[in-house]
């Protein structure tokens, strides 16, 4: 297969959609600020920064901008693989994709990459300045570490995202289910709500989400406790790989289901 070609094609498609739609581009850039701003605003109305420091151990502004970035990147991966089949069905490209000889797992793993790269860049405009403000020049190194880990965390999400996408889209009106799945994932990933503070059931569930381990490793780095970080990252990568065959099956199941109902062509 020609994966580089496919990556290039996806880049052109996604960037075409983003850069030729001004609103999409603008929202992409200001989103992390809005996101962090809102959470900070609500945070301050609930408790003081001091209390936050005491509970979580990280400066709230640093924590929130990091969390916004992590959530955006991680959810981006899930979103892209979840929404793409719906979008393709809507614009009518789905039958051509299904009837093409492409390996669907490869395609779906590549789908979130272009937008992720853009998010990486917004990391430089949001995380880096804040970190430098708080940690001085050391903040640059820290920020780069956090950005790379966030990207890694987002990537580990694709196989699980694909499993969910494949299963969810076999049901009619799947977008209704997506509206439940997304916020749930957003919380369970633990970016805003550190895993250690979660109720037991949520804690256990989050263990099965690959990127939650990356999120925890970033939190530990911010707390200056880097002992088990490698272990957590390895765990995330392993989980992602473990989900790969499931992702492939899930897509196959989805395709079978679509074909047995008949892929809509009009």
């Amino acid at each position: 297969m020609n994966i580089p070609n496919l990556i290039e094609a996806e880049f052109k498609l996604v960037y075409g959609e983003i850069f030729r739609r001004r609103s999409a581009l603008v929202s992409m850039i200001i989103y992390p600020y809005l996101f962090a701003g809102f959470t900070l605003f609500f945070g301050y109305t609930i408790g003081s920064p001091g209390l936050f420091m005491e509970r979580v151990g990280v400066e709230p502004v640093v924590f929130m901008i990091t969390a916004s970035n992590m959530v955006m990147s991680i959810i981006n991966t899930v979103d892209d693989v979840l929404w793409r089949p719906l979008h393709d069905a809507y614009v009518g490209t789905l039958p051509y994709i299904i009837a093409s000889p492409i390996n669907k797992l490869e395609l779906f793993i590549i789908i979130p990459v272009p937008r992720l790269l853009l998010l990486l860049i917004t990391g430089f405009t949001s995380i880096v300045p804040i970190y430098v403000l708080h940690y001085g020049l050391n903040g640059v190194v820290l920020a780069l570490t956090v950005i790379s880990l966030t990207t890694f965390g987002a990537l580990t999400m694709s196989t699980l995202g694909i499993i969910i996408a494949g299963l969810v889209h076999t049901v009619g009106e799947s977008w209704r289910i997506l509206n439940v799945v997304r916020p749930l994932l957003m919380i369970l990933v633990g970016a805003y709500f550190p895993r250690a503070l979660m109720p037991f059931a949520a804690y256990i569930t989050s263990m099965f989400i690959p990127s939650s381990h990356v999120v925890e490793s970033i939190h530990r780095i911010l707390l200056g406790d880097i002992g088990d970080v490698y272990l957590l990252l390895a765990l995330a990568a392993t989980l992602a790989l473990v989900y790969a065959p499931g992702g492939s099956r899930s897509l196959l199941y989805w395709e079978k289901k679509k074909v047995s109902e008949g892929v809509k062509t009009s």
Partner: protein
Amino acid sequence: MSSAIIVRNLAKRYRVKKRISLLRSHTEVIEALRGIDFTVNYGEVVGLLGPNGAGKTTTIKILATLLLPDSGEAYVAGYNVIKNAGEVRKRIGIMLTVEKGFYGKLTGRENLEYFAALYGLDRVRSKDRIDYLIRLLELDKLGADYKLLEEFSLGMKARLSLARALLSDAPVLLLDEPTLGLDPPSARRIRELVRDLAHKEGKAVLYTTHNMFEAELVCDRILLINKGMIAAWGTPQELKMRIPKLRVIAINIKGEGRVDRILESLGVKYEIKSEENSINSIRIHAERPEDVFNDVVRKFIASGFEIVSARIEEPTLEDVFIYFSEGSL
């Protein structure tokens, strides 16, 4: 060589759940295909004709691996469409609804590039092929290189859609109403191309259309399908011979005289319509009109009439279509 498309006893029912109330629902069954058989060979264009809802798109979708049949078998390029869908997909070019199926924020060329990657073309082949197809379909003149798809007219989309079907140079083409809504030049361009693809490049083409004129021009053979069954098949000429409508001599003559007497002396069945400025329009029914044609013309001239026009009228493909789809129209 084995046939490009083999369809045996193919049947498909759609089950549509109709909700009566919150708790009760019943399933309505639509028999879209009731066991059809046909083959398409390499190098020929086969037209799939039939009234709305006859099952044409259903057939195309099954062959394109986009729909599972309930029973029967279908092979495309030697592979079973159910068990070997992956192999079939490497060997088909498809064209479905013309208005949809592209990305609006990409140019025509970018759209083709995207699908070329999907169909596994490498960069060099992709570029060459797209250059070639854009020129072939005259998309360059229409601005496919810089216009976004959302700015495309229907005809441009149709051309682009055919270009996509041809991207991977697949040996089997499945085209569902490729000329729907096109202006005459666009439709002609597509017709010529489709014929060339089959006759010069040896591709197998299955083609649906509602345009009888077009079907007659493009298709080597025609399958008439009605209510999910094949009602008739053959070359356009064969099909016309099969309907009981007699062929007719249509003749317009000018002059004074007893037209009916002349016709009676010839011993033929006829209808006369008198028109303005002493022109009579006559229709003569005969089993073999060419046998009496000369006699008729000679007789009228000998009787002092002027022949305005005279020709033998064949049944049209439209007559064939209406004859075989009777009851559903």
